């Protein structure tokens, strides 16, 4: 699955010291092909592409729905927002890698760029 020079979700999570709320082993091995940042779900629906990392401060269950439909590689929830247990459960069932950071979206995106995720 992994292509040369491409970071995996696992490497992103380790590189930025992210909390892992939900993730199957397989979903951690997905390559991260780019990124989308934004908190309006309709905009994420329109803009996020398959295999990208989605950075958002939203933490409710619809984030998982949008992540499933857009087939993003993972979601990073910023500003320390905490998804509720039901959301985590849904993410696990739908195989969505749900990660978290205490930092803001801007800092997380900067970190992703530093790691080498293509802009």
């Amino acid at each position, binding site marked *: 699955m992994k*292509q040369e020079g491409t970071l995996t979700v696992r490497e992103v999570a380790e590189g930025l010291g992210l909390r892992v709320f939900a993730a199957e082993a397989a979903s951690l091995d997905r390559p991260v092909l780019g990124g989308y940042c934004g*908190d*309006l*779900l*309709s*905009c994420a*629906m*329109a803009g996020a592409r*398959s295999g990208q990392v989605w950075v*958002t401060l*939203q933490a*409710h*269950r*619809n*984030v*998982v*729905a*949008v992540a*499933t*439909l*857009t*087939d993003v590689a993972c979601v990073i929830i910023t500003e320390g927002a905490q998804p509720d247990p*039901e959301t985590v459960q849904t993410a696990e069932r*739908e195989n969505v890698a749900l990660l978290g950071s205490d930092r803001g979206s801007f800092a997380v995106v900067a970190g992703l760029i530093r790691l080498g995720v293509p802009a």
Partner: protein
Amino acid sequence: MSSSPGSVDTRSLLQDSDLTKAQELVYELVVRQVMTTPVVSVQPDQTMHELGEKLRAAGIAGAPVVEQGELIGIVSMNDLINALERGSRDDPVRQWMTIDILTVREDDSVIEAVKAFASRPVGRIPVVSAQGSLVGIVTGGDITRGLVRALDLDHRSDEVSHYRASHIFQDISSHDTSLTLRYTVSPRDFSHSGEASAKVKRALQRLGGRPEAVRRVAVACYEAEMNLVIHTDAGGEVLVEVRPDRVSITTTDAGPGISDIESALEAGFSTAPDWIRDLGFGAGMGLENIRRCSDEFSLRSEVGSGTKLVAVVYLGQGNRLGRAPRS
């Protein structure tokens, strides 16, 4: 090749009529599931004599030729016999190998391998990854064994049954076959919202839809579903009609209705209250997203009686549902 041991009768597998279980499976299985791996390969600078030793030791009748990790040819027992007859046992493999090679991809349906065998009298076909590197080899015998394994119900993997649904449009014939999926959506129920769209997406994947088309349907369906959740008094219904060449999404509700459709269709126009916006909705892009994802779009609404939205996504030529998945 039809007489060689362990080969499949490719002609019978290619006939459309009288769909047998084996014919069905040949579409469902992917090459990865039947191929032999790891591959015994030779280098171009080895001699034909060394090739003979290698084939004998491995009990095989041919091998791909690999140079610095790259597949550059294929050489068979026939080539070896020809070389020996000419007294050229010390020739390098490079001189006798076939360069013009047929390959299949590991995620191709097995039918692609069957077609390849039917197109040329070859005994084995190298299998390559999406990146083009050699990952396995497939022979008629491999296909037969793979089919026998798959026919054994105890070995039926999830992956196999997963593809089963993709033949519904081939198996059931009428002048206009369609599959109707109906979901009821409750107002303000954010804990179940998006579920209908997720189910529609999964259904289309099982029917063999391509990712790009599935995405368009999923996005349009999600936005339409969320409109019922966010804006209606009593919820509504999502009706998805799947045809081999197009998917129609219809949502109906009983109110409150849209007072100014023209404004509602403008990108960025939103009537959502703050608490809805806090959930990430209310960007005013919902209808715009539906319109952008669909090929036909209509919205009719009357204040007090309700709204009906229809969005149709054409799947396009070569993208029809109900065909075996191809890469």
